[in-house]
Structure formats: structure tokens, C-alpha cells
């Protein structure tokens, strides 16, 4: 079965870029551009890992994280933050985020982290 990854960012370009990157690596990828869409996609697409931008309009990343973790605690969520939103990392970790990564990000590190989360799921 293909590894399933949900990318959530209000910037479509970012989603598209990362989508093609992960698709090249044999992931099945879905995208969402708001917190509301993200929760919907988690319900319908059932991803293994969610890459969730912390700052978005219409339900931000933290609220989406809370809902996702309440309904689907097994889904691994990696928060994506910018320098100016770093103060929200602590809140995200308390809400059950599995890791965070700061923009600008290193593709190598991102891939490794997503891979690790998937492996940890398989291990359970």
C-alpha cells in the first residue's frame, strides 16, 4: 500500500511543489488550503502523515491540529512554522503535534522526517 500524505498550506504553490516532490518518491498525496479543508481531507483521504502549516486563514493550523488529533489520534502531524510563528510551537506540541519543521526547510530533512513518522506507524 502506498504511503499517504496530506499537505496543508494556504499557499497553493507550496502544496504543488511539495506534492510533486513526494509523488516522485512514491507517496500518494492530497492537498488542502485551510484548516477546515484539512479536517475534511483527513476524514475522507485518511492520510498516514499530515504536514500542517501553522498559520492559515479560516481555522488556523492549531485548531485544525486539535480537531484532527481528537478524531484521529493515530494520524501523525508535522507542523510547519515560519520564524514569526515560532511562539506557537509549544502550544502545538501540547496539542499532540508529532514534530515541527521551520521554513525555509531542508527537503532532505523533511523527507527523512515524514519517512520516520510512517515507519513509526508501521511499527505499532
Amino acid at each position, binding site marked *: 500500500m502506498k504511503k499517504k500524505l496530506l499537505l496543508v498550506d494556504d*499557499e497553493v*504553490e*507550496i502544496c504543488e*511543489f511539495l506534492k*510533486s*516532490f513526494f509523488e*516522485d518518491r512514491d507517496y500518494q498525496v492530497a492537498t488542502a488550503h485551510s484548516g477546515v479543508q484539512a479536517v475534511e481531507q483527513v476524514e475522507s483521504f485518511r492520510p498516514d502523515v499530515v504536514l500542517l502549516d501553522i498559520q492559515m486563514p479560516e481555522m488556523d493550523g492549531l485548531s485544525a491540529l486539535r480537531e484532527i488529533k481528537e478524531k484521529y489520534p493515530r494520524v501523525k502531524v508535522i507542523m510547519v512554522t515560519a520564524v514569526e510563528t515560532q511562539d506557537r510551537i509549544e502550544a502545538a506540541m501540547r496539542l499532540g503535534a508529532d514534530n515541527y519543521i521551520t*521554513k*525555509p*526547510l*531542508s*527537503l*532532505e530533512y523533511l523527507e527523512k522526517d515524514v519517512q520516520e513518522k510512517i515507519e513509526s506507524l508501521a511499527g505499532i
Partner: protein
Amino acid sequence: MTNLTRTNRQKKTEQKFDYQEALRDVARSMVRLKRPDRLLKLITRFIDRQFGLHHTSLLVHEPSKNRYVFVNSKGARRVPAGLLKFDSDHPLIRWFALPRRKTPFQEDYLLLTDIKKTLNKAHFRLAADSRASELVKVQKTMEVLRVELVIPGYFKNDLVGILMLGGKFSGRFFTSSEILFFQTLAHDCSMAIKTAEYNQSLLEQNRELENRLQEIEKLRHKEQRTYYEIIRSLAEEVEAKEPTVFGHVSQVEKLGMMTARELGIDLSGQHKDILSAALMLHDVGKIGVPDHILMKPGGLTPEEWEVMKSHVEKGAKILEPLSDFRKVKEIILSHHERFDGTGYPRGLKGEDILIEARIVSVVDSFHAIVSNRCYREGRSIDFALQELEHCAGTQFDPQVVEAFIRVIRREIAKGRIDVAALQH
């Protein structure tokens, strides 16, 4: 058919011409643009339009974090601005940033096709060189980003930025003259970035320096103020020593300022403070004259008179540290000079005596005549004015005397001068 060929040929020459034109544009832009980010944007757009590439990206070194961030990107495979970075230990960065050893690549660029060829050469693979495995990682990075050509930009020995280019839509290879052109661009951009960085740090340093200078100036001003206050209290002490002239200082100051205004002297800004201080402090040197001379009821002996006269120099000395009031010192030193040149301490004459000193001299003398002194009763105002007129041209500047008399007459007429208070 022929027409088409000609158009194509024309296009080709136009394109070649454009490179040079573009380079000149870049050079001009660098002078114009203080912020290199606009220049970099311009260059990315130019490459994207001119060469028809799948992908054009520019990475710039961030010295504070020691990383290389994708700042501009164009094309189908573009990297959103600010999304990706290479840390300084990334294989691609290490490849260009480390002191370059002898490699199969003599030039400062990497072509994906060259890498493939090189890696296929058995002797390169077998040479147990870590460089080979590094190159494999570089190749992987380029493939992930769909990059065919990487051009580093250096300033001196620092890797400042990197230009990453995808393949051409036409499927053709890059020509060596194109690569040379990209290298020139990368070099120029690096210089622009470094220059901007340098300017920025200079600006910050300047600002810092200015702030410090302002602070120092403030402190100095405060110090001067304190010193001025000390001298004022000294002047008051002098007054207290001659109880009959109590109130002298403020009276002299008031009349002196009015006379100066009457003469049309510039009293803007510091000029006003200087004259005011001189009028108030002109006798501060008397603090250094022994009381038995200062308060002697009868006439002074020639020796005692010499000591008395020294109060002008003593006053000037006391005021020396007040650099903001350098002129005050000069005025005080000269307030016993006479218009005809027979005064003390230097025997200055006429216009050589500061106008402020000539004013102090008139007002001070007037006050001395009308005031009760320890050695005699004060005279009437009319008598004093007659005395001033009598001495105009010898002891006093006639113009100052005239102005002063006008002031006194006007003030008396308006009832603003209390004759009794003047005389004590």
C-alpha cells in the same frame, strides 16, 4: 521559406546582442538599486524569459544563519520563495564552498550531463575519493529539483549565491558562451549582494555612532548647564558681599538686553543666552578679590586698585571651562575696556571691543552711579544719564549710550522702572 530562415537568423543575432545589452542593464541596475532583492528578481525573470527553461532558481547566502535560501524562482518546477534552504553542510554547498581541490571539473559550474559522464568513468568511481560520493549526492539534489546546470556566485572566496537552471524547452544543451554569460551574471549578483550587505552594515554603524555622539553631546550640555549654575551662584555670592548692590545683577541683565534689542543686535538662539550670561556674570571675578578691598569705604591705594582691576581676568578664568559660552569669557574680559583705548586689561579700542562688552560697560556704569555704594550715596538717574553722555566717545561707545538712554527714558515713561529699586 527564405524569409523564415532570415527571421530565425535575425532572432539569433538579436538574442546574442541581448546578452550584452542585458549585462549592461545589470551593471546599471546594480548602481541604481540599493536593495539587491529587486536586482535578483529582475535577473531571474530575465533568464526565465530569454532562455526558455523549465526552471530558474536563485539561492542567496544568509550570513546570520549560514544557510542558502531559495529567494527567487521561475518556471514550471519553481520553488516557492522562502520555502527551501540548503544548510552549509549540504553536499551541493560543500561542493562549491570548500576549497576546491583538483576535480574533473575545471570550471566553476556543474552540468548534470557532465556529472553523469564523470560518474560513469571507472577511474573516478574507483578512486576511493569521498568526492565521488559527494558528487552522487549533488546529482541527486539536482535531479530532485529538475536542475541541469548549477552556477556558483563568489565574492572573493565566499560563496554568496547559487544559480540553478533547469533544461531548455528545446531540449538543446547549454552552450559554453551561455554558461560564461551565466557565470558573469552570478559574479555580478554576488558583488551586488555583498555591496548591499556592506552598505547596510555601514549604515547601522553610522546610526550607532550618531546615537553615541548625541548622548555625549547631551551629557556635555548637562555638564555645562551645571557649571553655569555654579557660576551663577558665585555671582550671587559676589552680590551678597556688597550688600548695597543687591539686585544689581538682574537689573543690569534686564537693561542690557533691552539696549541690545534697541541696537538691533542679533539675539537669536545662543546669542541671547551669551549676552544674558555675560550681563549676569560680568563681576563674578570679584569672588577672587579680598573682602577688605571689595568693601573698603574709602579710596583704594594703587596696589589695591590693581587687585580690584584683576577681577576681569579672574572672571574670564572662572568661565574658561564653559566651552558653550566661550564668547561670555571674552565679553567679561573686556567689560572694563574703554572706547578710546585707555581701559583695562588690554587697552582695546572702539570696534575691537566686542559690542556685548560695550553694552555691559554702559549698563554696569549706569548702575554703579545710581546705586548706593559703601563709599557713597547713589546719584539720581538724570545725573547718571548726563554722566554717560559726557563720557560717550571716551569711555563709552556713543551709539550704545544713545540706545541705552532711549531705553531708560521709554521705560520710565511707561512706568516700568522703579527708581527707588534701582537706587536702593
